[in-house]
């Protein structure tokens, strides 16, 4: 199984006729994703890789089934596209755009929270349940990264995710669902908010969190472990352990931290509640073997 998206999930593509949209629609279908339709204003009547195109999301949902929407939309149009999907009743939305204006990112997250929707992104490769389906742009054909299995992965990064996940696979595991919450400073959905789904997924044995310095998203994961709402093993890797103060390394990080945001403090907190923290990507695989008894 998997969370968020699986082989039966009906997916709409907003911005389907664009270069990127069309290209990745083909690959999404290639992996097995059920793409039921697409939206580009003024292009109704066309089809893209077999998916019918509609002028608006309202038109699309009137004609085809869709429970999720994948946005290939530039950052300054992302807010509008997300609200259009929400307006049409769609509760799962993935947006890959990098550089969504911060105030609009807050508006997106606020609306998603109040409407009970889960918006993933921006600045992410998306969500993939290897071997089943994806929303985003993953080269799922790279076997040593996107191998199906029983480890959930959550990440803020792109390349680092490949680096770490390759180690997970090298250690003999595979991935149930990989969720890129995105590298922007205001991700629409936070690590801890996906934990209940992983907790309830009978085919996820453990979760790997690929975090970073800054912000409080890893602290929130620690909280979920501490309050007993998440009980599966957690292995964390974070870059930026030796980052010098005052330089803005990595992503923007959270703008307001409750804690210090340093990797050292996060490590201490996570380990205090029983999570395992890997110092190097390679050690993620080793720690998984330990916690899952190999």
């Amino acid at each position: 199984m998997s969370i968020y998206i699986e082989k039966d999930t009906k997916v709409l593509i907003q911005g389907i006729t664009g270069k990127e949209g069309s290209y990745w629609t083909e690959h999404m279908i290639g992996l097995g994703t059920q793409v039921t339709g697409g939206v580009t204003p003024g292009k109704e009547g066309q089809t893209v890789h077999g998916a019918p195109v509609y002028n608006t999301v309202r038109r699309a949902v009137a004609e085809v089934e869709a429970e999720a929407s994948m946005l290939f939309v530039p950052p300054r149009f992302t807010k509008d596209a997300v609200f259009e999907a929400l307006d049409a009743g769609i509760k799962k939305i993935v947006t890959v755009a990098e550089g969504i204006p911060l105030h609009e990112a807050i508006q997106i997250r606020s609306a998603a929270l109040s409407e009970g929707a889960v918006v993933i992104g921006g600045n992410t490769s998306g969500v993939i349940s290897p071997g089943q389906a994806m929303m985003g742009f993953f080269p799922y054909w790279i076997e040593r990264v996107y191998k199906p299995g029983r480890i959930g992965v959550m990440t803020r990064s792109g390349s680092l995710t490949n680096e770490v996940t390759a180690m997970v696979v090298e250690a003999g595991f595979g991935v149930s669902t990989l969720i890129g919450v995105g590298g922007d400073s205001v991700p629409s959905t936070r690590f801890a908010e996906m934990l209940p789904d992983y907790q309830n997924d009978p085919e996820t044995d453990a979760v790997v969190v690929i975090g970073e310095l800054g912000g409080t998203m890893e602290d929130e994961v620690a909280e979920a472990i501490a309050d007993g709402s998440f009980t599966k093993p957690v292995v964390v890797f974070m870059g930026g352990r030796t980052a010098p103060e005052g330089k803005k390394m990595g992503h923007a990080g959270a703008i307001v931290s409750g804690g210090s945001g340093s990797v050292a403090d996060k490590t201490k907190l996570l380990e205090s509640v029983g999570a395992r923290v890997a110092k190097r990507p390679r050690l993620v695989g080793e720690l998984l073997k330990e916690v899952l008894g190999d």
Partner: protein
Amino acid sequence: MKLFEFQAKEIFEKFGIETPKGVVFDKPEFDSKLDGVGYPCVLKSQILRGGRGKAGLIKFADTPAEAESYAAELYNCGQGVDRLLVVEKGKIKSEIYLSVTLDPAAATALVIACADGGVEIETLAKDSPEKIIRERVDIDRGILPFQAVNIAFQLGLEGDLRKGVSKVIMQLYAAFDAYGAELAEINPLFITTDDKVVAGDGKFVIDDAVLAKYPEYSMGREYFESDAEFEAAVDGIPYLQFDGDISLMCAGAGLTTTVYDLINDEGGKVANYLEFGGPNYRRAKRAMELCLKNDNKVILIVTFGTIARADVMAEGIVEAMNELKPDVPIVTCIRGTNEEEAVEILKAAGLEPLFDTEEAVRKAVAIAGGKA
């Protein structure tokens, strides 16, 4: 983009917040008449780093002669002071901390205030977290007057001061909102002996994603600490300067910070970080050019790309080497989409492509340390 103090204060004035009377001088100009500002005065270096006071970049002058002397001293202190803001030295009764920013977890705007102003919020948060007042603001709805009133009362203010500070809170929020800002901060907010409320210092950070709407803040050299950082920024390439000898061309912020950690673990030191992923993966030549501006001993390239194809990156690197003929060795660890083709391309160009990040790091550190 972080604005200079004098620019932040211009925005404050535009939204009705009082600031001390001041005049701006560009190096080497200085006129001790101060355009009527009067003495005693404060000479404030307009640079973007924090901690100007401790660094001796803020000076108090009682006389024109003193001011002249301090101005010359600041212009020539070697810390890149190219502009001075000279302001009247008010009679201050107390100082307040006030800022507006975003709360990513709560998905709101956030007003932060503290009755102990004048020190950095990080210090406040660490030393006396109980003194920090936080008020969340719905970003669609905007701040409501009662929220400002609540903050002002919590700051222990009464009467006209309570009203004056409430008003500044509303105005600061309005500025934050109008510019789609990342941060709008007044620290300290002066309460003068005659009960005026005046923005003593200002920090204003505009979200880069909306910067294009404000051509008045076009990217200039003055916003950067080094030529290389400025050039990279103009080219849209994320770049950070350090003082080591290993130049990094990496893809993705997460992988870069990881490689940075691994280099430090191995005893190496990074010269610069440069983003070679994302939209820049076809720009190997420009990236390498920027790296070569450093006094480095090796260039380490680590990627694990998805959209950024490994073969394209490899080709770019070989091309860049042919054109730029770098005089330092290059260590590569390029993985991801079409990685097999990449290996062939690099090998054909005489490189020894590696496939394991830790191994690549060790090799680069060894080269930099003269051991390989």
